[in-house]
């Protein structure tokens, strides 16, 4: 059984502060309860599929110059540095 504390913990890890917490949790719990339908699926013989991409399908690993100065699209930068909030 998923508890409100479990959901609160995940929201904190995802860096989400939410208002109307109870409403969110009720709806998320309802959705998670619906996901329990997966317990009934007869999938015990199934393997987890692995997706592969051949290395030849990847583009060449080389630098492509970009015409515009991307850093100028940011508001909080000085010179070549992006200004971020301080860590604690």
């Amino acid at each position, binding site marked *: 059984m998923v508890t409100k504390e479990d*959901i609160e913990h995940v929201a904190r890890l995802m860096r*989400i502060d939410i208002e109307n917490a109870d409403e969110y949790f009720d709806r998320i719990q*309802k959705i998670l309860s619906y996901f329990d339908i997966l317990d009934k*699926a007869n999938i015990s013989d199934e393997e987890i599929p692995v997706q592969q991409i051949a290395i030849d*399908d990847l583009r060449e690993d080389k630098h492509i110059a970009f015409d515009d100065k991307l850093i100028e699209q940011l508001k*909080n930068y000085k010179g070549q540095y992006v200004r971020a909030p301080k860590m604690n």
Partner: protein
Amino acid sequence: MSLAISAIDYINGIKNNTITAEEFVSKTLEHIKKHEPRLHAFISINESAVDQARQIDKKIKSGQKVGAFYGMPISVKDNICVKGGKTTCASKMLENYISPYDATVVTRLKDQDAIIIGKTNLDEFAMGVATEFSAFGPSKNPWNIDYVPGGSSGGSAVSVAALESVLSLGSDTGGSVRNPGSFCSIVGFKPTYGLISRYGLVSYANSIEQIGPMGRRVEDVALLLNNISGKDQHDPTTIHNEEQDYLSGIDTGISGKKIGIIKEMSSGAGLDSTVESVFKNAVSAFEKLGANVQEISLDMIQYTVATYYVLTTAEAGSNLSRYDNLRYGYDLDSEGYEFRQYISKARHKFGAEVTRRMILGGFVPSAGFAGKYLLKALKVKSKLKKQIQLAFSKFDFLISPTVPVLPFKFGEKRDDPLAMYLADINTVTANLTGIPAVSVPYEVRHGLPVGIQIHANILQEKKLLQVAYALQGTTKLPEVPL
């Protein structure tokens, strides 16, 4: 000059000198300005469209080589990047985001002299089935503005249905092209995973989503697919298809083809009686066209909605993590905030549905719960793929209603996410298995459209468009009441 012409007729009109690109684009913009206050299909409009059309007319007159679209106005969903313009994803988070590059599909449209007439409305980050979750207000269904247009590519569908563009590009993660196609009575096409480049499409659930063409006619969608599909070095999941011409032989017919009705999508308590009745008419039409139609049961279908939402929220949780106000976000001074608080402050800009899916996306793959949710969903996906392949060893096509319910009124499902998610039951299978599927508009009953969904096996787009074209020929749809 009518705006209600097909893409093919537009091109013929230009070639025969009966219309010019400038006239057509000018008239389209006037039409947009007249109807937008009521319909709200667009988030932004290309104000340079007439100048661009004029340039294309000059190329035509001077005998220069002109691209396949001859200045045709085409709208693009606002989660697909067009250089120099806003790409908002209908989110406050990206309200002022200017894309620094073109998506590959946009490059290909421009190379073929299409005119991007505007960027269309969607559910925030393409998460929804009604376009109600746009941060900039919902789009309205042109058949009845009290009803939703479907989603998440609702703006694209409205723009095409209401003659505000000839064609449109949407994106389809769980039915987001086909669902609004059905609700607005246009053709919505979800290609095989990898057939169209996703470079420049803002990611929601990378492993299953595809850009999809939308138009009023099946042949128009084939034309659009011809010009945007194929290998792209920027997207390693793309597939080579150079030899394929989806338009030629589209009228081949379907006599002798085997068609399977997917039982779990075409019967049961969740199926609206009007939708069921329209679907029966479509089945009769297939039989009259010479197809052999039988029912088939695929028991994994009952788990597909849960599987879809587990997998997509897990991927969305990861994709949305870039919206932290450092990499993407809005203008918020970093002074006075500590790191965590700064990011959570930024994420207040997400709407309720995006927040809900982000939390679910953090939850389902987390330690202690991954075995219960994510790993089971991956196994269901694997078994579903096997069932679908087995079905295609017996049938050429699989059919169902596109959506089990009629278009609904605004607000009807907004506060019940689960009811909203269940509207996806018929469309998510194509995404989970990577197969192509199309919604063909079939009837309008009591003023509300109903579409028929046809699936084909991987990379069988040409045959899929042939059967869609054949079905289209068996119905005559009313004109949209503008």
